[in-house]
């Protein structure tokens, strides 16, 4: 490379920050919704899921990007899937060894990270044609963009649905039940996750000029 750019050039910083806002995988590209609905009933599994996706996406992005010139295009999708599946199985094994309860709660959804469109999409669209470092930043950026939404949704669903944060009964301690508040059981159900994501999209669109479509 003749014109080496600095590690954190403004272009690279954009790779990190764009997915958090104008290019968010969930709220703008509307990918990875399935898992966002399923595991956000409580905050803890949301965070574990977010961390798992960060690990899987950033590592697979780097691996695929490092191998990109060696991967025969005809079997590239299979190679990408193999790398993703390997990472997911590793994450699953580690969770079973060190966070058994959470791994039981996440159940099949850890395995389903393999089919998360965000990961496949980033490998195919970005890692196959960029250097490992930028692919790493892109992976971190996109998975954090995904994780942040998961955590926001998980926070509201656990707080309003069970009146707890991390299993700590917040609402009971501040005595909100005494004035007639009741937990909203609807928050526990998957449709409510969709509605919360909808609200996030609405708030984000109304505040970000780039996302407002001309009518």
């Amino acid at each position, binding site marked *: 490379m003749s014109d080496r750019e600095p590690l954190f050039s403004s272009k690279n910083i954009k790779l990190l920050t764009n997915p958090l806002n104008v290019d968010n995988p969930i709220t703008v590209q509307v990918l990875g919704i399935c898992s966002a609905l*399923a595991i956000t009933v409580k905050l803890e599994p949301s965070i574990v899921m977010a961390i798992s996706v960060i690990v899987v996406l950033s590592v697979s992005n780097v691996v695929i990007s490092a191998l990109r*010139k*060696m*991967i*025969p*295009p*005809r*079997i590239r999708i*299979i*190679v990408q899937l*193999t790398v993703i599946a*390997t990472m997911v*199985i*590793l994450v699953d*094994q*580690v969770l*079973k*060894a*060190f966070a*058994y*309860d959470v791994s*039981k709660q996440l*159940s*099949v*959804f850890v395995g389903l990270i393999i089919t998360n469109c965000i990961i496949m999409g980033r490998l195919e669209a970005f890692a196959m044609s960029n250097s490992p470092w930028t692919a790493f930043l892109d992976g971190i950026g996109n998975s954090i963009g995904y994780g942040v939404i998961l955590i926001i949704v998980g926070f509201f669903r656990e707080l309003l649905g069970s009146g707890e944060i991390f299993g700590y009964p917040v609402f009971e301690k501040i005595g909100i039940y005494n004035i007639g508040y009741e937990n909203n059981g609807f928050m526990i159900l*998957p449709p409510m996750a969709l509605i919360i994501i909808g609200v996030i999209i609405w708030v984000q669109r109304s505040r970000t000029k780039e996302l407002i479509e001309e009518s």
Partner: protein
Amino acid sequence: MKSFSNTYIFVFSTIMVVIVAALLSTAAMVLQPLQERNIKIQKKRNILSSIRIENNAKNAEELYDKYISNSFVINAETEEQESFNAFEIEMGLQMKKSPEQRSLPVFISSLDDGTKKYIVPVHGKGLWGPIYGFVALNDDFITLYGAVFNHDDETPGLGAEIDTDWFGAQFADKKIFNKNMKFISIDLVKGGADPESLNEVDAISGGTLTSDGLEKMLYDCLSSYQTYFKNQMKNNK
């Protein structure tokens, strides 16, 4: 775009698969002891939950030692088999054998109020994989005290609901023998169980196959203990 020969593609995929296989098997071997320990703790937690004792991953072993006063293994003729450790027995393997050859574990618990509960494991097939659990009986050997069920990969939100508290709680005070002392097991009823009924509980909506599997599991497993339960009832009199 650079083109690759078929030989290259084959060599590339072979190397990739070998590396991946080596990586995964190493990880599986290194993490296995930790995972097995977690599974053991989970089993103890399930046994404790079946006798309605609140527990968590940290205090499960301590509570288990406190409340489970005795455990032994019986065969179909209800003779005790001393060479077995009840905790180590895999109910799944036993249920594959013919009824005469099964080694059946029984756990006895003494609760704080002085009553004794008899806990037996159950194991069967759900929709996608194994389902299993523990059923606790009162010392009349007719009434259930509690039950807890677990699964490996039932559908979340549908069949997977069998591991929720509300589902297990339904089994308390249900009877597995009728007035004539005939073994009737527990029925899972779709569309709502009759609250007056002594052996009906609600099935899971949307989880019909899992519910059917669970009903069959209860029948199969508890019926292998029938002779033992009946002998104990006679001894009680």
